[in-house]
């Protein structure tokens, strides 16, 4: 049977199933990450990105492809994390532009939309690298376009697109040498393939539209995301409108369901009146609810109409919040707008992991340090939130990681305020950039100065391999330490101290004046002292500064200038 048209409802199901399929494969995609640092997060990032998109799809009640697509794109845009997540969001931003206003779509519409998405994504990336998700999307869209010129069946079109996406994915190692060396395909491309698989499964009717997430961790992940978002939006305890975080799990019972037929969307809409941060997931057996409400009893009663209570958890968020405030030493009874949050001309927002690193940045005048880094890429929305809360006229973003630069750029695009991204790729670059920051200068002058000064600092990092691999012809065992100088591994071995010393020997030359050592949470003072002693013996004209960064994963972050 030929199917010539995709309707809104089906389209929404495709998106949901695409997300589900990506979600169940996210760990596998993580494992494809080629760089052997404890990084493997492409799957996680793409999953969190698409989850944010699907959330918007669920909130969209219109049976209209254009409207659904636009909601999806908006959710992706705000939730975009990591480079693959940002590219994914751009692919669907273009897609949604292309199907704007269309209630249903034909094969031609679909292929055109995929094509336009590719165009948009290429435009968004400053230096597109072939052999990545971009190539996979491009090849697949091209095949789809050719196909739809003489065939109108949408199912067959999607099959052709998926087939080519897979073929293109297999070719990625030929385009990107680093993939070939490690013997994997591109992780972002793999993510896109799993999304397309989900699309096709729905079109072919192989999967029933289930917006159901079976595994508990997934709900947890969603709850965490909700809390993460809401925690940032509340500044004072009194601002919390809905005081109780309520989680209810219900086992469906047939008798009750007969009286009270369950509709997930209907139920969601009903609960939505009670509070915010609402999550509802259901499968054949279980219904799970997470919501912030003022009267948890109502929610429990409503849920109980469909079955028996399995589990109920209620937490008083005002108490929790007050405790946090107390720990921070502010007054819980009369929360005042904090002094530091008065309107300022400038705010610099950066990203880092480790209390010591945050202190270093704040000492240099940074307003907000978003928690994150190599393994925890903040989303576009995290940046947007920080921008909104900065209460400043001009904002500078320092991402401190090449995987976070794009999310920052996207946030700068989305924001109505004057935001500039100074694309620092490492913590030392970010710190150096802050030296050039001058609140009396214009945004452009600052960006120029900060970009310039970043070139003068050399970055070294000591971390460990998450699995056996080989890179640049060097065999690396799981658990071995690696010294990374800018992007290259220059020393490896089982002794962290020796690896660090070898790395420093590579970094320091006659021009070097200061070596700064930022010690990770896994290293002791006597260990860093030993390195200081080594440098003093080898290079007596180099000044050494040691700071406790408390960062995870990186035993040492080094900078030479």
């Amino acid at each position, binding site marked *: 049977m030929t199917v010539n048209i995709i309707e809104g409802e089906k389209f929404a199901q495709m998106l949901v199933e695409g997300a589900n399929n990506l979600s169940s494969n996210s760990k596998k995609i993580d494992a494809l990450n080629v760089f052997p640092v404890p990084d493997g997060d492409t799957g996680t990032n793409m999953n969190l990105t698409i989850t944010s998109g699907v959330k918007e799809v669920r909130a969209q009640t219109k049976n209209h492809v254009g409207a659904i697509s636009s909601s999806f794109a908006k959710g992706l845009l705000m939730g975009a994390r990591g480079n693959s997540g940002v590219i994914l969001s751009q692919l669907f931003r273009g897609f949604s532009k292309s199907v704007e206003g269309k209630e249903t779509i034909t094969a031609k519409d679909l292929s055109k939309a995929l094509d336009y998405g590719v165009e948009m994504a290429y435009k968004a990336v400053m230096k597109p690298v072939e052999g990545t998700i971009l190539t996979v999307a491009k090849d697949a869209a091209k095949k789809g376009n050719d196909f739809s010129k003489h065939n109108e069946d949408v199912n067959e079109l999607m099959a052709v697109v998926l087939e080519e996406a897979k073929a293109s994915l297999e070719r990625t190692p030929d385009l990107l040498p680093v993939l070939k060396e490690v013997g994997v395909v591109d992780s972002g491309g793999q993510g896109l393939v799993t999304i397309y698989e989900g699309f096709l499964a729905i079109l072919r009717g192989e999967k029933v539209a289930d917006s159901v997430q079976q595994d508990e961790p997934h709900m947890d992940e969603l709850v965490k995301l909700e809390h993460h978002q809401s925690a940032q939006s509340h500044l004072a305890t009194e601002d919390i409108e809905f005081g109780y975080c309520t989680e209810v799990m219900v086992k469906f019972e047939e008798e009750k369901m007969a009286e009270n037929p369950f509709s997930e969307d209907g139920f969601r809409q009903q609960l939505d009146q009670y509070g915010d941060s609402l999550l509802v997931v259901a499968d054949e057996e279980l219904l799970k609810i997470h919501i912030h409400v003022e009267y948890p009893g109502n929610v429990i009663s409503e849920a109980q109409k469909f079955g028996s209570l399995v589990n109920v958890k209620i937490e008083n968020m005002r108490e929790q919040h007050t405790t946090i405030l107390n720990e921070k030493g502010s007054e819980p009874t009369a929360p005042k707008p904090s002094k530091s949050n008065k309107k300022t001309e400038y705010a610099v927002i950066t990203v880092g992991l480790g209390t010591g690193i945050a*202190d*270093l940045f*704040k*000492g*240099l*005048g940074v307003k907000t340090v978003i928690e994150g880094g190599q393994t925890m890429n903040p989303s576009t929305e995290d940046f947007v939130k920080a921008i909104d809360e900065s209460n400043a006229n001009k904002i500078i973003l320092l991402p401190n990681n090449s995987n976070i630069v794009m999310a920052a750029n996207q946030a700068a695009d989305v924001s109505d305020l004057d935001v500039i991204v100074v694309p620092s790729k490492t913590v030392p670059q970010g*710190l150096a950039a802050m*030296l*050039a920051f001058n*609140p009396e200068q214009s945004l452009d002058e600052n960006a120029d100065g900060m970009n310039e000064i970043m070139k*003068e600092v050399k970055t070294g990092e000591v971390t460990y391999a998450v699995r056996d691999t080989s890179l640049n012809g060097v065999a690396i065992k799981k658990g071995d330490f690696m010294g990374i100088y800018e992007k290259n591994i220059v020393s490896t071995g089982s002794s962290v101290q020796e690896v660090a010393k070898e790395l420093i020997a590579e970094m320091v030359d006659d*021009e070097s*004046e*200061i070596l*700064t050592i930022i010690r990770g949470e896994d290293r002791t003072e006597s260990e860093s002292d030993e390195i200081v002693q080594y440098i003093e013996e080898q290079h007596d004209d180099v*000044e050494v*500064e040691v*700071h406790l960064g408390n960062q995870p994963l990186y035993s040492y972050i080094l900078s030479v*200038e």
Partner: protein
Amino acid sequence: MSIVKIVTDSTADIPFDLQQELDISVVPLKVHFGEETFEDGVNLTSNEFYEKLGGADSIPTTSQPTPHQFETEYRQLFEANDSPDIISIHLSSKLSGTFQSAYIASQTLGDDIPVTVVDSKRASYAIGIIVVEVATMAKAGATKEDCLKRVDELLEDTTVFFMVDTLEYLEKNGRIGKASAVLGSLLKIKPILSLTEEGEVFPFEKVRGQKKAIHRMIQEFENRYGKDDIHVGISHAKAESEAKSLMTQMNDHFTVKKEVLTNIGPVIGTHVGPGTIAVSVTKMRK
């Protein structure tokens, strides 16, 4: 037509023989170590001061000359020199009340003894460089009008950059100005400091490492003076060898027509601390 006499204060850090050579009158500020009071450069030399500073329990304090001191100085000059015109050039009014004292003295004397008081908006040899240039003209017989015109040019053309070993002294004495922005940093930062148009301390640039600071400073002088004939003064607080090597570098990069190496005296030394080096540059007339 009367001759022109130039008065300044001890914070101009003009070497003694140059004062003598150009007939420059210097009014001393005061330094107080606890109960003990010294007159800057009169009964306390730079070397003695830094020695005392090293052994002192607390940082000394300083005070401006009284209006009476200026009045006395102006009167003496006037009487000894057959009614000269007096130009009195002083430490930035944003950093000290010295200018204020001199101004009050000039007002007190009124038309009897005409004194033009100038706020140099600078400190250390950056004042000195202006004073020396004008005193040279005055000694050659220039009129008061010519001298004041030249003062305006010099105020426009003179740049000073300085580096301190620690910001502690500027902070404790409340002269940190806009450089306070650098204080919170955990990283050791060597700011290149300068003075604003108003004469306040500000961090021209924050850098780490002395080599880099010197490199940036020379770069900036290059932008401002290029191939001009320049007068360079380097004043230092117990950092003679660094100051000398810096002077060599300045000669390598620029057409230096006049160079002066001098000590940062006790009063400025109190505010910037040992290890400080200041480089002052101005354009010479062709």
